[in-house]
């Protein structure tokens, strides 16, 4: 197991920031850690990186306990904290060399050069960090997390505040890294999860409310099928309701209908047959998956 946490709890004063959380992550998995503001995502990450100790429970990275062998854990973890803190007065390359030095790499110069290429920092590498744009600063943050070739990457909101172009670049970079490494990333952007994370863990108020593959979470929602159909004229809603397995029909504007049925009934053919019988033409028909956003909202609404 790359990461294993067991009944992990962190208490601030009287409040449990995280409350008996447990999960395991295998080698090479890319996991999205989701949850509303204040759910405890950053807290979990800070414990995993040995920044702060838990109140109770155990956390392990590559089979090293964060409490008993923190140095071993730190050697194996690359960390990008939430607000990407950096030394603004240092030059990009100088900073990366400094970080490389702290991990005692065999050939820091070559490694830093490689990182600069990988993260696309080439044109900016001779600037001071404070002179960089946010996107490039984010790349420096990623480069410092990667420079010692860590086995586990922990990225706390790695793409917050980036423009769409940078967003795509950084996501591609993370996807590339995720081919070989274990990655845990937190984010509030659902498209990002869809683009990057085969597995999702959702935390709400310090507790895990979902943990599974992305498809299973999206499928799992109540076990319903949703079809939206647009016809060239009005149709009797009762006829739609009468179709096999239909639970609910919603009339939308412009002769559009939203039909909800129990899973397992393929509505598309039934609707097509009905439309033909009623002399209506189908202008559009699409099956809707419940979106991750719906799943998220449903699981974390208090």
């Amino acid at each position, binding site marked *: 197991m790359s990461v294993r946490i067991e009944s992990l709890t962190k208490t601030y004063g009287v409040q449990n920031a995280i409350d008996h959380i447990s999960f395991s992550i295998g080698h090479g998995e890319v996991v999205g850690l989701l949850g509303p503001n204040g759910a405890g995502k950053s807290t979990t990450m800070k414990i995993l990186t040995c920044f702060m100790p838990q109140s109770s429970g155990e956390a392990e990275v590559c089979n090293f306990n964060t409490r008993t062998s923190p140095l071993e854990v730190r050697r194996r973890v690359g960390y990008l904290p939430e607000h990407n*803190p950096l030394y603004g007065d240092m030059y990009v390359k100088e900073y990366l060399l400094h970080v490389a030095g*702290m991990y005692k790499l065999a050939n820091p110069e070559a490694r830093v050069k490689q990182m600069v290429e990988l993260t696309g920092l080439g044109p900016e590498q001779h600037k001071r960090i404070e002179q960089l744009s946010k996107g490039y600063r984010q790349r420096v943050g990623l480069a410092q997390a990667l420079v010692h070739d860590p086995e586990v990457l922990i990225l706390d909101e790695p793409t917050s505040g980036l423009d769409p172009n940078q967003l795509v670049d950084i996501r591609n970079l993370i996807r590339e890294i995720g081919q070989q490494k274990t990655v845990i990333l937190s984010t509030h952007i659902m498209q990002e999860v869809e683009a990057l994370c085969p597995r999702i863990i959702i935390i709400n108020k310090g507790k895990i409310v979902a943990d599974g593959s992305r498809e299973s979470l999206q499928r799992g929602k109540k076990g319903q099928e949703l079809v939206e159909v647009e016809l060239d004229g009005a149709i009797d809603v009762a006829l739609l309701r009468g179709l096999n397995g239909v639970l609910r029909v919603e009339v939308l504007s412009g002769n559009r209908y939203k039909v909800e049925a129990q899973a397992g009934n393929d509505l598309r053919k039934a609707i097509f047959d009905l439309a033909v019988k009623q002399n209506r033409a189908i202008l559009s028909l699409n099956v809707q998956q419940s979106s991750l956003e719906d799943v998220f909202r449903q699981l974390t609404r208090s």
Partner: protein
Amino acid sequence: MYSLFLKEIRSFLSSPIAYVVIGVFLLVTSLFIWVFPDYSILEFNFANMDPLFVMAPWIFLFLIPAVTMRSFAEERKSGTIELLLTRPLTDFQIVGAKYLAGLVLVFLSLLPTFLYAVTVYRLADPIGNVDTGAMLGSYIGLFCLASAFVAIGLFSSSLTDNQIVSFVTAVFFSFFFYAAFDSLSLMQLPQQVLLVLEYLGIARHYEGMSQGVIDSRDVLYFVSLNAFFLTLTRYVLQNRYR
């Protein structure tokens, strides 16, 4: 640890603070040694550097906190402390690296004053008629005193994320250890208490060393004082930031 030490020195030297501090130190000490009539060697024809060793602790009292005030406070304010504390370094190595970097800066500011020493040596009549033993002892004493101020400064910086607060706290603690214990020992107190108070203050040990006698008890005192504040700093790192 070495990498962190180098980075600390580089960040000292790339910020104006280091140059201001070294510049002010040299300016003030040379004014006292050569210019101000009350102290000036040229007026008195004494071939010694006492003015330097009397004034330097007071100057260091303000300048060293100005150098160390950033060390942890700034890291905490900018959040870089989170990365620093998740590197494969022990807390002791982190404190140690910053402490050693501070010592290097102190050494750099003392280095040019050797020129004064050489001049005094040449001015003496006959040439070289100076108490080199006392001079050497004074330098060692001054360095010990400055190292204690660095340790105190680091500790103060670890307490807060505000540089000004860090500076003021450091000046206060340094002053307290340098002079306040001595002043306290002027009060009407039982003899034993007075001895302890006097022993706790930096001043007595510093003056002892200035005589040119390096007493192992004085050295032990400075080592313990430094260790005490560095350990406290490490304790704060372990408990307050997280």
